[in-house]
């Protein structure tokens, strides 16, 4: 177990900056998610922590010790890759034992540790198989067992769920999270999927174009986005943005409700033209535009279907909608959040 600290990490490929001065620190036992669109530099950052890439500038410290010049094997870190990187010519047993063999752990100890790790992940019955004989979910567990068998200082996970189908993904998400809480390993998890980030992270670092846009708990990322990028990247559908006093005014689709549904508190009213609506079972998404605004600026509302009178949302009609004032977020011209209008 350890803390991981990055200070002003910069990585350039030629003239292109993949990472542009990222600083963050991960507490002992914390589950930090790096969330960002593809190509934002999050995987490169993870590889720098692992030692697979060398940063152009900045320091990586593990447990307070700067490890810039240490090779990956001296950092005591385990990493799990997107395609798992299992060794196809080894059995599951030998795959899990490999990190121990490289450290010349005695044979008896290897046997007990492999047994421990495979029991932890419930893959004892797979030990004599080869990776190609396993399903996607089983491969993922083997990769996790291999990463954990030597009790790493920190665990790095690079989009570990992206190769699983949707159903398996949600159960695997749950499993990894529970598992991490049980063993308490400091974990850095890279994903572009906000559902994974919100569901699993103790904290989330939102990354775009090689910069950290915001670090915080899932709730603070969602409720108090630091800028326009975070506001529109997190949340489905994304936060509505309309031009406002040279900047932007934002509100979440679930806060944008028919006027009659908001009973108390101060509100800002809009006249909303309903173009179409989608019924998704647990919710209804309504698309339209606001009076006096460009038709290109599509606004969405997310309504709980049980509580909405159907008359209120007939496509092709205007209807008064409103947002509670405390749900409004203001962003200035450069996209940075402003606390008041």
């Amino acid at each position, binding site marked *: 177990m350890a803390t991981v600290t990055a200070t002003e990490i910069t990585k350039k490929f030629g003239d292109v900056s993949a990472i542009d001065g990222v600083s963050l620190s991960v507490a002992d036992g914390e589950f930090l998610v790096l969330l960002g669109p593809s190509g934002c530099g999050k995987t490169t950052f993870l*590889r720098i922590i*692992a*030692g*697979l890439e060398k940063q152009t500038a900045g320091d990586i410290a593990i447990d307070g010790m700067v490890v810039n010049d240490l*090779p*990956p*094997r001296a950092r005591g*870190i*385990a*990493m799990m*890759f*997107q*395609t*798992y*990187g*299992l*060794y*196809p*010519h080894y059995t599951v047993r030998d795959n899990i034992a*490999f*990190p121990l063999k*490289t*450290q010349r752990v005695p044979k008896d100890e290897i046997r007990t540790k492999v047994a421990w790790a495979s029991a932890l992940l419930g893959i004892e019955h797979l030990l004599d198989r*080869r990776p*190609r004989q396993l399903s996607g979910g089983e491969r993922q567990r083997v990769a996790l067992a*291999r990463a954990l068998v030597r009790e790493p200082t920190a665990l790095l996970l690079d989009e570990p769920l992206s190769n699983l189908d949707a159903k398996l993904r949600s159960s695997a998400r749950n499993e990894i999270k529970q598992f991490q809480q049980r063993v308490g390993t400091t974990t850095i998890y890279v994903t572009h999927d906000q559902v994974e980030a919100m569901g699993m992270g103790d904290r989330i670092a939102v990354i775009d174009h090689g910069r950290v846009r915001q670090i915080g708990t899932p709730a603070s990322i969602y409720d108090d986005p630091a800028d326009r990028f975070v506001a529109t990247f997190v949340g489905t559908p994304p936060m509505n943005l309309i031009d406002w006093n040279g900047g932007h005014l934002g509100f979440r689709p679930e806060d944008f409700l028919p006027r009659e549904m908001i009973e108390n508190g101060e509100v800002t009213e809009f006249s909303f033209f309903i173009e179409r609506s989608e019924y998704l079972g647990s919710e209804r998404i309504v698309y339209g535009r606001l009076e006096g605004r460009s038709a290109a600026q599509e606004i969405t509302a997310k309504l709980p279907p049980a509580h909405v009178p159907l008359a209120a949302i007939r496509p092709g009609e205007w209807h008064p909608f409103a947002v509670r004032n405390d749900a409004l977020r203001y962003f200035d011209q450069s996209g940075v959040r402003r606390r008041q209008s």
Partner: protein
Amino acid sequence: MVALAERLQARRSRFEFVFDRPRVLGTLFLAPAIIYVLALVGVPFLLAVYYSLSAYTVYNPSYHFVGLQNFIDVINSGVFRRTLANTFIFTFGSQILGLILGKFGALLLLRPFPGRKIVRALIILPWVVPIALATVAWEWMFDSLYSVINWTLIALGIVTRTDAPNWLVDPGLAMLSVIVVNAWRFFPFAIVIFLAGITAIPQDVIDAATVDGAGFWRRNYQIILPMIMPIVVVGLVFGLVFTFTDLSIVYLLTNGGPVNATSVLGFEGFQVGIISGDVAHGAAISLFMLPVLFILVIVMLRFIRRQEI
């Protein structure tokens, strides 16, 4: 409606879609290859088998059947036994050397460096240069008087002018020379094979090994090499077959000499059967390649099947 459909169907000829049938089309497409192999490999092979059991010579073309007498003659000949041993030394020596050079060449060419593409293109040269040209150049390099190799060794002070090695005259060195030339011809092929194999390994696997604590050697010999083994074995089978049956380098560089020190099966069969005209014994010598190659290929193919990943 029903009557109409029946009439349309009735008008179609049985043979209108004959080329849509896999049996017909497949046979048609395979025929040229099969005829080619049968006519140019199968027939000469059967002919060779028959020659080896006959008393056929250029001077006395008789198909008189002599049984295994030719093979007995050949096995009892000291020159042949020397040749058989040479063939193995030549084949395995040059393949091992070629593979080692190929592995290191591939590792070097995997690293990005300026001009890598040009080097990659140039490195193929030994393989594509006509063998006669290349061997003439090597002959000059191994020459007793003008040897550029000896000149370098003398200039570096490793040997003196008086005890400079006489590459193509000393029996051991002559064998080493033909091995080196053949390895030089083979190693670009080995590089291509290794490069193809290594670049096909997912980067995640190599990265995983690195993070798991494997250093350069362990990564190479416990992860990369086993993973590319199937493709290397295929390359090796090709190399072994071509080298085992090759006679051109020996023919051009040493002519089997000195005193049969570099004579190999292909060369000896050619000498006896074509140059000396003793077709029967030449065929018998050449047929000694067959069981060896057969066993080799079977062993290798079984190995590949077991290794399949």
